[in-house]
């Protein structure tokens, strides 16, 4: 639920009893006031009547009135010193309904004769009053509701805008591009605090990230020299003519492992450099030429395994990629298609202006989608020459230079597609 919907809902829930109580209070208050007024009027009327009756009774007639509003009936009851007030309901013939009345009654004496005097006033306005109050209240409540919804909409469009802008920025935050992301200051104090905190946080994360990356790069660089020394020493050691076959073999294996270590190091550095965008796009190398070059470079590997290579290449496919990366992209994908193929297997290569697809047969099962581009994720036990970084590098090139790299397994073919 949106924050605004929620606040609006709460507002309505709180306002409903408040308005109800208000309506009840108003009704009660008005009702009391009307009763009071009517009672006063009745008392006043009685005073007038008494005066009139006093003057009108010189001839000492016997009065007998009986209307709904005024009754004067002779009685034997003793004279009452004070009048009594009460509410009654009487049947109205014209409307065929009961109607509320206020009634004043007192036994009075006119020239020695006792009369029961009753004065009544209609309270029919009371019903109308209740209707009016409910009507007004509903109108006010509805009006307020519309106003609240409208103003909330307005608020969400304006006051909350910096919040949504910040949210959008956080959503698109990337670790390697954090530096460029600034959460701008806003006229709202709370959002300012939020943005400031976010700025500090991203700065800190970015700094940590840079430190980590520098550590990796420095470590990789620093490793090159000892590797170079160890390798050169082994190469010199190999020249000793007095070495036994076993010793030679051990040196050879050690040298081989050193090679592997330096390749690994080289590839880790390469990954870091691609991520750092140290390969600017200054020209558009023709992928067709790159492909032809690597096909001829890998010629003997293909021949050795007796692979069938079917190609369908467009004459020219300039891709927006650094030439070194174009080489790596093609050689890694083509190299894998050869390395993981079985003897007399097949390779299909399709190159259009925007896509490069390479598929190959293999004894390996489908690679789980989650693992295919992960570092050091080797599904290829027994291929000790792999360091598990080839596809990770391809993927990184894709991510950094907006080339989509996808993997598919179809009819026994491992299919890799790069599209720009």
């Amino acid at each position, binding site marked *: 639920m949106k924050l605004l919907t929620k606040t609006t809902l709460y507002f309505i829930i709180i306002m409903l009893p408040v308005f109800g109580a208000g309506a009840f209070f108003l009704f009660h208050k008005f009702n009391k006031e009307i009763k009071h007024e009517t009672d006063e009027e009745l008392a006043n009327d009685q005073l007038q009547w008494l005066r009139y009756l006093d003057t009108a009774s010189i001839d000492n007639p016997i009065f007998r009135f009986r209307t709904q509003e005024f009754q004067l009936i002779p009685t034997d009851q003793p004279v009452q010193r004070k009048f009594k007030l009460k509410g009654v309901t009487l049947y109205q013939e014209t409307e065929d309904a009961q109607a509320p009345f206020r009634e004043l009654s007192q036994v009075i004496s006119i020239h020695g004769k006792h009369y029961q005097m009753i004065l009544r006033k209609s309270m029919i306005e009371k019903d109308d009053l209740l209707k009016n109050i409910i009507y007004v209240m509903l109108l006010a409540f509805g009006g307020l509701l519309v106003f609240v919804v409208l103003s909330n909409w307005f608020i969400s469009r304006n006051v909350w805008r910096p919040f949504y802008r910040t949210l959008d920025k956080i959503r698109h935050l990337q670790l390697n591009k954090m530096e460029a992301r600034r959460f701008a200051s806003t006229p709202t104090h709370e959002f300012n605090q939020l943005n400031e905190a976010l700025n500090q946080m991203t700065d800190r994360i970015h700094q940590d990230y840079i430190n980590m990356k520098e550590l990796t790069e420095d470590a990789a660089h620093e490793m090159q020299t000892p590797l170079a020394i160890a390798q050169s020493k082994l*190469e010199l050691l190999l020249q000793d003519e007095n070495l036994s076959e076993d010793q030679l073999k051990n040196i050879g294996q050690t040298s081989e492992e050193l090679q592997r270590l330096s390749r690994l190091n080289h590839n880790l550095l390469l990954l870091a450099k691609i991520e750092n965008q140290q390969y600017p796009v200054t020209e558009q190398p023709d992928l067709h030429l790159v492909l032809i070059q690597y096909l001829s470079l890998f010629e003997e590997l293909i021949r050795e395994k007796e692979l069938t290579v079917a190609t369908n290449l467009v004459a020219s496919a300039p891709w927006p990629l650094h030439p070194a990366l174009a080489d790596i992209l093609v050689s890694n994908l083509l*190299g894998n298609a050869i390395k993981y193929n079985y003897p007399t297997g097949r390779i299909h290569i399709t190159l259009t202006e925007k896509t490069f697809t390479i598929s190959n047969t293999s004894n390996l099962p489908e690679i789980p989608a989650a693992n295919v581009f992960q570092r050091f994720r080797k599904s290829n036990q027994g291929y000790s020459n792999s360091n598990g970084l080839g596809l990770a590098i391809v993927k990184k090139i894709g991510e950094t230079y907006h080339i989509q790299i996808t993997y598919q397994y179809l009819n026994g073919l491992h299919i890799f597609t790069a599209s720009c």
Partner: protein
Amino acid sequence: MKVLIIEDEPSLRNSIREYLEHQGFVCEVAADFREAIDKVTDYEYDCIVADIGLPFGSGLDVIRELKSLKSKAGIIIISAKDSLEDKLSGLELGADDYLTKPFHLSELNARINALLRRKNFDGNTSISFFEITVIPASKTVLVHDKSITLTGKEYQLLVYFIANQHRVVTKSALAGHLWGDAYDQAGSYDFIYTHIKNLRKKMMEAGGEDYIKTVYGTGYRFG
């Protein structure tokens, strides 16, 4: 042939020196920037092998100095920094070649040989090893003065072997020489064996001696 090795790591410096001296070069060494500048201003060298990261300065500045002295020496950069800018700026300054650490000594030696041939004789010279003669300009190989036909890779192998004669050359060094960075992708070195077998066969058919000895488990020795 005189080579100056500018490298601050003593172990690596000595390895390079030992290997190159064994291959018949006269070597001098410089351990830092100042020593390097002193040596290049005072003496003439045929080839200079220079590291970029040096105490008191950069190898790139040594190249600048060499160029301002109008030195004819061939320059090979060896750097731990496998960075493109270094490579490009080095080559732009006038370096002739670039090798990233770690490298094979046999590769460095082969590159120096190729560079010196290019520089000193404009490639118009032949390389001889007993009955074998290689003419780089036309990529021709003669055995007992009879021309034999080699594939590109076989030719590269032969030149590499002759440059590193009498030395054990590892399979990975050969693979790196023939395929560059892409040899990562090879998966195995088996295919080198095919090339060597063919090269050996072609030379022996022409009456040449079998100079390529297999060194158990590691590589090959030529001569």
